[in-house]
């Protein structure tokens, strides 16, 4: 696998393929944010939980400091966009009006549970919209590097960090493979080009079917 950016773009590009419109999608911070630039369907509408439906990229010259996404990064306003307050925004999420969320994780396990908001032993300081998106988005897609910096699998038998929700995610996309979560078990549905089944097995702690 090439450098970090290439790896992230590979994952983001694959995730973008899951998005066929018309649909409303919320993108998390990190790799999920990269997904935006690979979306080909004009009828994918991006929702950001700080209060905008209709997020698009913004050119450097057009940056408005009061127009940002949930990662506080500058964004643009699509034609047909709408603004709303935080309660309305999360009403959309919890009320299952958002079709898909693409999220990063610290860990994901073989039941599809994820941990992406707290690390044991560190101060528990931030949760943001993670838990709301997990209970509310109709489909949750995890995008993550397959292993952590020290080479350990991020796809575990069981999350050791505090979970974000009792709800299982629907799909896990890494630089090596794509898993679907069916009845709280992982199913390997795709390997990235050039990746062998052995490599996936070696780097995945979780049990999965093929």
């Amino acid at each position, binding site marked *: 696998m090439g450098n970090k950016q290439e790896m992230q773009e590979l994952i983001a590009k694959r995730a973008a393929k899951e998005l066929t419109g018309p649909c409303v999608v919320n993108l998390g911070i990190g790799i999920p944010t990269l997904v935006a630039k690979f979306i080909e369907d004009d009828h994918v509408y991006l929702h*950001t*939980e*700080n*209060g*905008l439906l209709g997020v698009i990229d913004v050119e450097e010259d057009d*940056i*408005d*400091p*009061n*127009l*940002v996404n949930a990662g*506080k990064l500058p964004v643009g*306003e699509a034609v047909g966009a709408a*603004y*709303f*307050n*935080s*309660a309305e*925004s*999360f*009403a959309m*999420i*919890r009320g299952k009006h958002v079709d898909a969320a693409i999220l990063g994780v610290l860990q994901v396990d073989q039941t599809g549970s994820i941990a992406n908001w*707290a690390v044991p032993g560190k*101060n*528990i*300081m*931030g*949760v*943001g*919209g*993670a*838990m*709301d998106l997990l*209970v*509310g988005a109709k489909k949750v897609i995890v995008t993550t590097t397959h292993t952590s910096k020290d080479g350990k699998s991020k796809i575990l038998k069981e999350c050791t960090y*505090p*979970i*974000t*929700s*009792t709800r299982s995610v629907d799909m896990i996309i890494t630089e090596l493979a794509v898993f679907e979560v069916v009845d709280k078990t992982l199913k390997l549905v795709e390997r990235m080009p050039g990746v062998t089944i052995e490599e996936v097995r070696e780097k995945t702690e979780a049990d999965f079917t093929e």
Partner: protein
Amino acid sequence: MTKMKKNIEDALSCVEDHHIVMVGGFGLIGAPLTLIDGLTKKDVKGLTIISNNLGEAGKGLGILLTQNKIKKAVGSYFTSNREVGDYYQRGEIELQLLPQGTLAESIRAGGAGLGGYYTTTGVGTQLAEGKEEREINGIKYIFEPAIRANVAIIRAWKADTLGNLVYYKTARNFNPLMATAADVVIAEVDEMVEPGELDAESIVTPHLYVDYIVQAKQILTKEGVVTNGQ
């Protein structure tokens, strides 16, 4: 009649020691920077701050933190100010972490005269510990109580002299909610207009929610926070 206050200090005279104060904004975006600056200059202690973040290190509410004016903070994402962790470690601040949607909804409930509500968010997680769980129509929920404050300081874009408010893009966020949920509501605004200049169909915060209006002097720009005039 106008709700305009010329003097920030005067407008903030309602904030007392040990008050609960709601502060609008998502980080610095839509935060009432001028009023926060006013609080940094006011002799007040033991505040409970309800705000999504505690500003950034040395910015916005981050200054109030280092002035030791904050006893407790209720929010969803303190991670944006690394200094909060240090204060917490030293036992110098109490923190209550809520999912962002729960924070927003609880404030709305406080403003709407509700006692609390049942949400799916957080069920089965560490943040549900100690909270009542209840099954309704086969779905598990947890109880979340409504939240209110003594004072809310918020930021809007335009106000008319009656106190009707509209907001600017994603600077809206928590501001209209907090405008409903405090005994006294002070809005800082970029622009004052006459009644009738705001479209009646597009007013986001009707004037009955707003007690005082002040002119915003601290503005968030691409280059950071800039102080206008005075």
